C-alpha cells in the first residue's frame, strides 16, 4: 500500500502536478532542515537589503498584508501573508519557484532553509 502511494507521488511529481500543501507543513519541512526558527530574524530578513538593490519589502511592502505593486512594472501583487491571502504557500512548486527567483533578486543566491523558516514563521504572525 505504501509503495503504491509512493508511486503515485512520484508520478504526480513527474507530470509536474501541483502538490497541495499548507504554510504550516512547509514551515515544518524547512525547520526539519535548519536550526531553531526565529520570527524576529525573519522580520528583519524580510525588511533588510542584502547587498543588492531590493529587499523583500521593496515589492511586498511591510507588513505584507495588503495589495502592493511591483517596484519596477507596477503590476498588482496580492498580499503575501497567508492570513490576508489564503492562497499563499499552498502550492509547493510555486513557493520554491518564487523563493528561487526572489532570493536571487534580493540576495544574489538561493535562500537557505533557515531563512525560509524564519520568514515564513514571521509571515504567519502578520495579520
Amino acid at each position, binding site marked *: 500500500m505504501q509503495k503504491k502511494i509512493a508511486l503515485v507521488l512520484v508520478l504526480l511529481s513527474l507530470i509536474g502536478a501541483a502538490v497541495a500543501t499548507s504554510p504550516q507543513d512547509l514551515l515544518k519541512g524547512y525547520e526539519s532542515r535548519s536550526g531553531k526558527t526565529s520570527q524576529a530574524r525573519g522580520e528583519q530578513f524580510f525588511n533588510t537589503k542584502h547587498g543588492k538593490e531590493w529587499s523583500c519589502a521593496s515589492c511586498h511592502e511591510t507588513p505584507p498584508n495588503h495589495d502592493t505593486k511591483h517596484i519596477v512594472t*507596477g*503590476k498588482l501583487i496580492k498580499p503575501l501573508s497567508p492570513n490576508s491571502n489564503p492562497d499563499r504557500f499552498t502550492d509547493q512548486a510555486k513557493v520554491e519557484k518564487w523563493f528561487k*527567483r*526572489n532570493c*536571487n533578486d534580493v540576495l544574489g543566491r538561493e535562500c537557505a532553509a533557515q531563512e525560509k523558516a524564519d520568514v515564513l514563521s514571521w509571515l504567519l504572525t502578520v495579520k
Partner: protein
Amino acid sequence: MKTDFLLSLLFLLAMPASAARMAMPADAPKSYEAECANCHMAYPPGLLGQKNWQNIMSGLDKHFGTDASLEAKTQTEITQWLVKNAATREKYAAFAPENRITKTAWFIRKHDEVRAEVWKRTGVKSPANCAACHTDAVKGIFNEDKIRIPAK
C-alpha cells in the same frame, strides 16, 4: 448603398494589422499567463520578432534585472508558442535593441509626445506598464481613444 457597404468592408479587410489592435492569439498556453503575467502584463507575441523572443526566453535568469527562471518544460512550451506567433510584418519584426518592446522604432515614434516626467509618475512607473495608460491593453487594444494618462 450595397456598394458602399461592400466598399467599406473591403477597406476594413485591406487595412494593415496595426499595433492599435494586437490581440492575444487564442491558443496561448496557460503557462504564459501564469508564468509571465505575474510581474508584467502578458504582452501579445506580435509585439516582437522571433529572434527577440528567443533571446528573452534563453536568458530568463537575468530578465531585465530580475530572475524569472522557469522549469525547462514550461520554458520550451512558452518559447515555441511565442516564436510561432511572433511578428512577421517588417515594422514589428525588426530587431528590438536589448530585446525591449520599448526600444523598437515604432514604439518610440508612437510615444514621442509623452514627456519624461509622465513616464516617472507613480501610476505609470515604467514604459513597460502598457495598461497604466492603455486602459484595454490586456485585451490587446492600444488605440488612442482608450488612453487615460494617470495624473500622478
